[in-house]
C-alpha cells in the first residue's frame, strides 16, 4: 500500500469511530501530536498534586485530610494511566519525565498558581477539576484506544474531586463572616485561571481543525469554555458568591452567558515559565525524582538478587 492509501484507511477508520490501537498504522504527525497531548496531560496530573499536597497536613479536620489524600492519590493514578497510554505509542517513561524536568514539555498553566488558604482546596475542586472534566469527558471518545480507555477511568474518578471541592466551599459559604470572605477570595483568584485552562481562542488555535479531524479533540476551546462559564454562572448562586467578572450577563438571544475579556498576556507569561510558582513546581518535581533515584536502584538490585 502507498502512503496515501495507508492514510486513507486510517482516516476512514477514524471517521467510522473505529478506535486506533497501538500496533495499527498511524500517520507520524498523529503519533507525535498525541504523545505531546497525552504526556502534557500526564504531567499536569503529576504537577497538579503539588498545590493540593500543600494543604494535606493542614486540612481542618481528619475527614478533610483523608479526602484530600485520596484525591491527590487519584491524581498520581491518573498520571500513571496517561503515561502508560503515551508509552504505547513507542516513547519511554524516562523520555517523558526528562522532557518535563528539562522544561521542554508543558503542563497545565493552572498549577503555577499558589494555594494560599484552605478555601483554595474548594475552588480547585469546583473550578479547576470542573474545567478539567469539561475537557476530558469528550476525550473518552478519542480515536486512540489506550487514551480513550484511560480517560474513561479518569472521568469516573474525577467526579468525586469536583463534588468534594464544591462541598468545601458550600460549608465555608454557610460559615462565619471570615469564612465567607475566604470563600469569595478563593473564587476571585481561581476563576480567570480556570477560564484560561481551555486554551487560546479558536482563531488563535491553529491545530484545532487537524485535531478534530483526527478525533483527538471533539469540541473547540471556545465551545468548551462557554459551556464551563454557563454552568459555573449558575452554580455560584448556590454558594451565594459571585464570579469576578462585571461583564458576566445572561444573553437571552444566544442562550449563553456573555463574559469579559481574558487576559491572554497573563496566560502567555505563565505558560512561558513566569507564573507565580513555575520554578517552585519544577524544582519540587526534579528534587523528588533525584532523591528517589536510590530507591529505584535499590528496588532493581533487590529484584535481581531474588531471581
Amino acid at each position, binding site marked *: 500500500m502507498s502512503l496515501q492509501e495507508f492514510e486513507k484507511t486510517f482516516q476512514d477508520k477514524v471517521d467510522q469511530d473505529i478506535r486506533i490501537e497501538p500496533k495499527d498504522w498511524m500517520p507520524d504527525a498523529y503519533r507525535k501530536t498525541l504523545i505531546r497531548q497525552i504526556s502534557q496531560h500526564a504531567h499536569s496530573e503529576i504537577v497538579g498534586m503539588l498545590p493540593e499536597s500543600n494543604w494535606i497536613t493542614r486540612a481542618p479536620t481528619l475527614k478533610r485530610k483523608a479526602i484530600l489524600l485520596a484525591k491527590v492519590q487519584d491524581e498520581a*493514578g491518573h498520571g500513571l494511566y496517561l503515561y502508560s497510554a503515551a508509552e*504505547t505509542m513507542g516513547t519511554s517513561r*524516562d523520555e517523558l519525565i526528562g522532557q518535563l524536568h528539562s522544561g521542554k514539555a508543558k503542563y497545565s498553566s493552572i498549577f503555577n498558581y499558589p494555594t494560599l488558604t484552605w478555601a483554595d482546596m474548594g475552588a480547585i475542586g469546583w473550578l479547576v477539576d470542573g474545567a478539567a472534566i469539561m475537557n476530558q469527558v469528550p476525550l473518552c471518545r478519542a480515536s486512540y484506544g489506550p487514551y480513550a*480507555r484511560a480517560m474513561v477511568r479518569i472521568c469516573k474518578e474525577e467526579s468525586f474531586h469536583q463534588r468534594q471541592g464544591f462541598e468545601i466551599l458550600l460549608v465555608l459559604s454557610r460559615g462565619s463572616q471570615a469564612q465567607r470572605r475566604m470563600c469569595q477570595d478563593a473564587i476571585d483568584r481561581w476563576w480567570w485561571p480556570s477560564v484560561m485552562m481551555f486554551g487560546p481562542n479558536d482563531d488563535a488555535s491553529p491545530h484545532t481543525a487537524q485535531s478534530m479531524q483526527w478525533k483527538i479533540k471533539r469540541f473547540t476551546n471556545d465551545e468548551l469554555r462557554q459551556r464551563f462559564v454557563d454552568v459555573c454562572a449558575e452554580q455560584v448562586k448556590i454558594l451565594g458568591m459571585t464570579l469576578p467578572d462585571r461583564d458576566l450577563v445572561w444573553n437571552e438571544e444566544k442562550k449563553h452567558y456573555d463574559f469579559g475579556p481574558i487576559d491572554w498576556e497573563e496566560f502567555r507569561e505563565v505558560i512561558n515559565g513566569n507564573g507565580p510558582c513555575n520554578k517552585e513546581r519544577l524544582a519540587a518535581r526534579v528534587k523528588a525524582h533525584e532523591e528517589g533515584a536510590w530507591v529505584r536502584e535499590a528496588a532493581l538490585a533487590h529484584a535481581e538478587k531474588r531471581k
Partner: protein
Amino acid sequence: MSEQQWPLWEIFIRSKQGLDHKHAGSLHAADAQMAIENARDVYTRRMEGISIWVVESRHIHASNPDEASSFFDPANDKVYRHPTFYDLPDELKYM
C-alpha cells in the same frame, strides 16, 4: 541516560468472583511482587478487583493487525457455525 528503567508489566484484574481476568492497563515495577502491589494502588482504589495477574509486557506475543483480514479469514465464510443459519419450523419447541 545511565539509570536503568523498571520493566513494564501488563495488569489483568478479576473484578468479581466468576468473571475472567481482564486487561486493565500497564505499569512499571522492579519485580512481580511490586507490580502486584502497584496494580492494587493504581487500578483497584475503589474495590474494582478481587484478584490481580501481572505479566511482563515483553512476554506478550500478539497477532499482527496488518494481517488481520487474512489471518481471521478462515472464519469469514462459515455462517453455518451459527445456530441462526438453520431455518426450522416455528412449531419446533425447546431448541
